[in-house]
């Protein structure tokens, strides 16, 4: 299973959101990217968590400064509204783009257009899921805006439109370090034809193992656990490989 370092950025800092609200500064994105690369991370996700909320443009300079001196995939999200935004991101060092707010709240065809131009494998759709009685609702703008959309229906639509990967975040669990919303990840995984990246809630390696065994996502995205040096990437990978009884390197 891939282990992804997720950098939630409120420029110029990587921050740790608590329930997508309170923020603590964790370091600079370029430094943390290089640190996790050295630890053996499989991918780096850079998420500008306030771009959509503040309704401002993408801060390309800082992204470009981050995309240096590491040679694993670099996915960038936050505030992407147009194909031009994506083209520019690829030209400064991104390998994938991550879309949520604009596609969910304004124009879902952004997914189709992106997949058609860049190929599905480069288009990640991010979901911020809020748990209600018996279902989950899609949120946006860093967990602040409701959409009225059912998560399981939306991920189906996103895949049909060409999403090549699904990043599943939980508004309830994010930043709490109290474990994943395992039901959410499992339900999405069961319906997904494309790879699923599980995020939000890892406070220990045990949380990751428990979720991975139950929900079997294709990748896990980790933030706080790494930012607080509670463990390093290599330790997570070794433990997952042993627990999931698979070859450390084999793609599931």
């Amino acid at each position, binding site marked *: 299973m891939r282990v992804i370092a997720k950098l939630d950025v409120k420029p110029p800092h990587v921050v740790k959101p608590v329930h997508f609200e309170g923020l603590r500064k964790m370091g600079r994105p370029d430094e943390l990217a290089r640190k996790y690369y050295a630890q053996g991370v499989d991918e780096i996700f850079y998420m500008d968590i306030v771009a959509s909320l503040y309704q401002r443009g993408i801060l390309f300079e800082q992204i470009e400064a981050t*995309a240096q001196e590491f040679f694993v995939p670099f996915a960038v999200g936050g505030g992407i509204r147009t194909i031009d935004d994506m083209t520019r991101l690829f030209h400064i*060092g991104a390998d994938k783009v991550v879309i949520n707010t604009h596609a969910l709240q304004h124009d879902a065809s952004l997914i189709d257009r992106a997949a*058609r*131009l860049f*190929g599905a494998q480069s288009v990640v759709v991010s979901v911020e899921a809020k748990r209600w009685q018996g279902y989950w609702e899609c949120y946006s703008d860093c967990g602040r805006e409701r959409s009225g959309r059912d998560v399981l229906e939306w991920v189906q639509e996103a895949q049909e439109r060409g999403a*090549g990967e699904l990043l599943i975040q939980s508004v309830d669990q994010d930043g709490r370090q109290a474990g994943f919303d395992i039901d959410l990840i499992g339900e999405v995984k069961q319906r997904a034809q494309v790879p699923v990246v599980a995020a939000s809630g890892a406070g220990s390696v045990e949380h990751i193992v428990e979720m991975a065994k139950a929900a079997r996502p294709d990748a896990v995205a980790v933030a706080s656990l790494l930012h607080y040096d509670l463990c390093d990437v290599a330790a997570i990978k070794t433990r997952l490989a042993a627990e999931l009884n698979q070859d450390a390197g084999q793609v599931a």
Partner: protein
Amino acid sequence: MAQQVGLIDFGSVGNVESVRRALIAAGAEVKLIRTADEFDGVSHYVLPGVGSFHEVMEGIRANGLEEPIRQAAQSRPTLGICLGMQMLASLGFEFGETAGFDLIDGEVRLMRCKAPVPHIGFNRIEPIKESPLFAGIDPEAEFYFMHSYEFVNYTDVCALSSHGGHRFVSAVSKGDLYGVQFHPEKSREHGIRLLKNFIEL
């Protein structure tokens, strides 16, 4: 002496910058090639690849780059990466049927297997013929893949990989023309080594 590698930047798509940085890390000087008159004066060519077959081939044709790229690939050692490899084929089936450069016989078709597609992540490769590209690379080394389509070829296979129980072509070679389905520029030190092997050809 550093080799000068011509990195073909075919318009609006492609993770060109990632490839450029990795080539520099491998010891190359990189010249970006955007127009038909910029092809001269380099020792190697790289055709990078993030995009969809139809859109990118159409873009290349619209910009008058099809023939220059075809000629370049036959004149100097050339490496196609991911879509850049797939476009070497005769025909692609991503968003309709589109002719490729037709430099290596074969078709590019949607992967069908028991695991999720796109195939995304690090995976091993199994060289099935001797190739200078893999010189000095640990057989256990893993390379990063991100693709939904695969190159179906029976004549120029250089390496295979496996996804969800399905074996597919992960590298092709024909003379000085090479193609890899994975992304060496995103494959840590093994990828840089492969690029170094390529620029030393």
